[in-house]
């Protein structure tokens, strides 16, 4: 066996820690697959509590993603393209929820929108609206932690791609909104798709902010991660089955992310 000159052998001192790293990330998931109660899986996941939690998770994560798109895309554009001052600071600040422990996000949302929160007390007193412990609260908690992923993905795309097309459009007399609609937005579709997929996956997995801000009630606020956490105490088999479902769902999102479906969106 001859190793081609252009492709030298990978050094062993990198291969070994790399293999450990891959094992560290993949072995726990493999163990989950091994422990999955395959025989009873279909009954476990088609029974009431599991489908209820899955349906709620899919619905709320979908809504949170849509909310992220409406807020995140314009925000990404503002940070990437605006000449207003403080945009670098704004970029750092709006991505803070990404690194913040989610439970802190939940406490922060309660401080603003809780019944005694800065805004929440007026919502309650004037309109009788209380957000905590509702499905709306789940969506807000998920959007709070997921939107930064979308902003970062889209903003990164706009920042790294030159403005030439838009510049040409504007020299040809196009209004800024028209140029945004016909050039800036369509060319960013793959990045927006990737960002939305990331935001959806992050919303599906949201736990800390949700249980703090939205609470835990079957059908309205008990999403998959909360159902898994609770099942761990009463029915570990159900917890493993639910974890398997959530993992399968996230793998599907990943495949979507890597596949041509997302990267080709812009070409159509």
């Amino acid at each position, binding site marked *: 066996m001859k190793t081609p000159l252009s492709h030298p052998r990978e050094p062993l001192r990198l291969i070994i820690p790399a293999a450990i790293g891959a094992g560290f990330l993949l072995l726990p998931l493999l163990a989950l697959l091994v422990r999955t109660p395959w025989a009873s899986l279909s009954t476990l996941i088609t029974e009431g509590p599991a489908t209820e939690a899955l349906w709620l998770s899919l619905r709320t994560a979908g809504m949170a993603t849509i909310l992220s798109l409406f807020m995140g895309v314009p925000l990404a554009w503002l940070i990437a393209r605006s000449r207003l001052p403080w945009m670098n600071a704004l970029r750092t600040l709006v991505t803070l929820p990404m690194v913040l422990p989610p439970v802190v996000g939940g406490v922060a949302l309660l401080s603003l929108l809780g019944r005694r929160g800065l805004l929440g007390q007026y919502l309650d007193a004037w309109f009788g609206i209380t957000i905590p412990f509702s499905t709306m609260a789940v969506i807000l908690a998920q959007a709070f932690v997921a939107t930064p992923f979308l902003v970062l993905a889209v903003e990164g795309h706009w920042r790294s791609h030159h403005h030439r097309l838009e510049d040409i459009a504007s020299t040809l007399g196009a209004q800024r909104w028209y140029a945004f609609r016909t050039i800036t937005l369509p060319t960013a579709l793959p990045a927006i798709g990737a960002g939305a997929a990331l935001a959806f996956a992050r919303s599906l997995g949201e736990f800390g902010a949700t249980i703090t801000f939205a*609470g835990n009630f079957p059908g309205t606020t008990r999403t998959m991660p909360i159902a898994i956490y609770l099942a761990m105490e009463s029915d570990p088999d159900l917890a493993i089955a639910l974890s398997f479902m959530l993992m399968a769902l996230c793998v599907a999102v990943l495949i979507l992310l890597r596949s041509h479906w997302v990267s080709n969106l812009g070409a159509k």
Partner: protein
Amino acid sequence: MSLRLLFISLALVMATACSNPETDSNAPTEVVVFAASSLQGPFEVIADELQESRVGVDIVFNFGSSATLVEQIRSGAPADVIATASEQTMFSINNLTHAPARFADNYLAPAVPPANPGGITSLSDFADPDKKIALCAPEVPCGSAAAEIFSRADITPSVDTYGADATATTTLVLSGEVDAALLYETDILNAGPAVRKIDVPQSRDVVATYFIAEIRESHKTAEAQLFVDFVLSERGQEILRDYGFVIE
């Protein structure tokens, strides 16, 4: 060079993280006590007094719902003593513990924020869908006791959220996020003026019984026994009574 430094520091970190603290003969013996969250107040006082009188014993607590604690012990968590808020959770691991002892009782009662924004006066107000109601999750002792109270009273509560344990549910009333919850009388008492108790006749129907036991696998039998004995001693019982627990 810097890579080598990285490896050395990594090895050092691993070595300290994995080293067994018990090999240090001068260090106090750590007794790990898993206890129901409602026991936090009295147990911390008990630990302080015990550590003052017996040098060389260090009590470390893990407070949580009895259901969580039992599950953690089942998965091999290194506990020396467990104290639960129900007989049922304690006896669900009787193959892993020595004989449990009942050491205190507690009752549940409706609790509201001081201004009583929901105007709660009776247990049947819990069935009003317009009120924000919290209960402990049915999996944990305060939740199963709450469910029993409602089923005996033939009332279906309109629950908005389930707290993970007694402390989490108490916090929901403390923060004013809910109109009412069923809480342990001890937790209501110890929350002070921030939580108001509503007296209802049904609250004495169901009693929560607290049990304590040593874990069989524990290697610190003598020190674990010391803690259990203190809880069952006259002084230990007095502390529990101070926190509102019912002592027979």
